[in-house]
């Protein structure tokens, strides 16, 4: 057997290019589906992990998927809006901690997440550079967005207009970058966080402008009635909140009717969670409560149905490759007839010739298995990071 292996090895060494092609083909056929399986499993795990860490989500009735995707991964598909009253309603139940989210606006292609301090505690986000949000107009950047945009605390970032062609739309707000978060390897790394009120300022619900009671420019004033002054569009609106104009920023009306996209509800315990869910069973309610894990799991079930098709395609391709290899091997046996005849003439038994050819196959399969194991090891080792970069960006 050792001599058969030796001769097989010599053949393989001599025909190294052919062998490398064969080994690579076999390795790829094995590695591709296995790697895909690893990456899909890892992406399933990571997607579910974020969802499972978010116990309950309250949003306006509509697509539960849009609500979950927008609130968990800051997807740019904005769900139906609801008011801050929804958060107050949860607060009043004393069953859960409400964390409002307003994920509607963007800055240079990245989401602006309007929220409260509780969100940072809830997600375990810590400040790596600079400080947390303190004033209206402050923003804290996720680790990756800071790197991508090349921003440090002390610099500024401008919100993107929702619609370039809406002349009556809100002005972009120049926000101060006051801090950068430590990497969390989640969607938070690619978001710009602002206080909920700053998000409302971006929308134009809160604003600051020159004091109309003190202005000497008569062309700005439309009408004066007692203490009320009506001004026209010429009135200068501030597009940046700074120490000098901070006091001029104000919100008209009751903030409880101001919009949010969702409220994360963190129940105090399982029972509280169940009770809270019960509060939203009324079909006349304008809000819905969802368990993100269920929604994402449902989504994954649908997505991963494709996996079955993919597996079938890979199996067919694999089978075709194996058949091709058998054909190649059979043809190579024909090409090697003379060599086989020579060995036979020298006195070799047919069984020994078969053993030599088998040894070649064994060596090729062993080399492919080894390469495959190494490749799978590498994919497995980097799967978490790879999937994270694909999901988070």
């Amino acid at each position: 057997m050792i001599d058969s292996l030796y001769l097989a090895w010599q053949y393989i060494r001599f025909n190294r290019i052919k062998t490398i092609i064969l080994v690579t083909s076999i390795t790829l056929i094995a590695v591709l589906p296995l790697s895909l399986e690893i990456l899909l499993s890892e992406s399933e795990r990571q997607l579910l992990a974020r969802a499972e860490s978010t116990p309950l989500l309250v949003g306006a009735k509509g697509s539960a998927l849009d609500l979950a995707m927008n609130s968990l991964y800051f997807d740019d598909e904005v769900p139906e809006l609801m008011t801050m009253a929804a958060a107050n309603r949860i607060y009043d139940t004393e069953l859960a901690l409400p964390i409002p989210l307003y994920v509607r606006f963007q800055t240079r292609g990245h989401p602006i997440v309007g929220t409260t301090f509780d969100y940072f505690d809830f997600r375990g986000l810590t400040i790596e550079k600079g400080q947390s949000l303190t004033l209206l107009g402050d923003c804290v950047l996720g680790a990756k967005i800071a790197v991508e945009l090349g921003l440090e605390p002390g610099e500024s970032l401008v919100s993107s207009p929702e619609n370039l062609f809406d002349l009556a739309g809100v002005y972009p707000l120049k926000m101060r970058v006051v801090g950068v978060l430590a990497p969390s390897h989640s969607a938070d790394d690619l978001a710009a966080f602002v206080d909920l009120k700053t998000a409302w300022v971006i929308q134009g619900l809160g604003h600051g402008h020159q004091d109309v009671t003190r202005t000497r420019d008569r062309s700005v004033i439309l009408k004066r009635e007692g203490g009320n002054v009506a001004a026209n569009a010429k009135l200068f609106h501030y597009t940046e909140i700074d120490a000098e104009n901070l006091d001029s920023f104000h919100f008209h009306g009751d903030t409880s009717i101001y919009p949010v996209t969702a409220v994360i509800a963190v129940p105090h315990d399982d029972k509280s969670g169940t009770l809270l869910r019960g509060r939203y069973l009324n079909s006349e309610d304008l809000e819905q409560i969802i368990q993100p894990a269920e929604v994402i799991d449902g989504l994954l079930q649908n997505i991963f149905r494709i996996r079955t098709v993919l597996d079938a395609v890979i199996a067919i391709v694999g089978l075709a490759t194996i058949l091709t290899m058998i054909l190649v091997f059979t043809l190579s046996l024909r090409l090697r007839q003379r060599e086989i005849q020579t060995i036979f003439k020298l006195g070799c038994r047919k069984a020994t010739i078969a053993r030599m050819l088998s040894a070649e196959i064994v060596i090729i399969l062993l080399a492919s298995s080894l390469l495959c194991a190494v490749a799978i090891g590498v994919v497995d080792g980097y799967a978490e990071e790879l999937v994270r970069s694909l999901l988070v960006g």
Partner: protein
Amino acid sequence: MIYGKTMIHTESLKFEYPDSSFHLSIAHFAVKAGEKVAVVGPSGSGKTTLLNLLAGILTPMAGSIQVGETAVSDLHDAGRRDFRIRNIGFVFQDFELLDYLSILDNILNSYRITDALKLTGEVRQRAIHLSNQMGIADHLKRHPGELSQGEKQRAAICRALLPNPDLILADEATGNLDPDNKTRILDLLFESVAAHGSTLVAVTHDHELLPRFDRVIDFQDFRTGGTS
């Protein structure tokens, strides 16, 4: 080897290739031990077939073949292979070297492909010694594709001589060589045969070489009923 004893003896030998009109019929053929016999004759007359029958590569349809004390025609396939590998050195016209093996591995190949021969350090030393005698010691690590025709044939002769066979069958051993190499290879073959006391049966087309053999058989006459 005892000179004068019969090394090869065949009686009423018949052979046909399937699906072919060729048939070989030899009434009687004998070669004495230590004899150097040349077999000449036109192409297709069956010279190579005779060598293959003597070596046990082909099986006769009728008749007997005796090589030394062994009735080769009575042996089964495995027995004929073992007998061939131990007792017969075959020098093929086209060298029959394996491209993927080094020259040394080609010389030692008979020892690797069968259990009938045991590859030892002594055998390796003998292979190196033989290659030295044949003038190819510097090429032992090279592959056949890197060697000239003459060098390849010398390697093939080394392989045939390595087990010290009693009988050497050479099929057009010098057919592919230029005149200089032809003489040199034949000198080496004769020297080796003499040194080991082997019997040599060589098929050749080259009439200039015939005077160097003890006996010449014209295969055309021989097949039509002649005997040696």
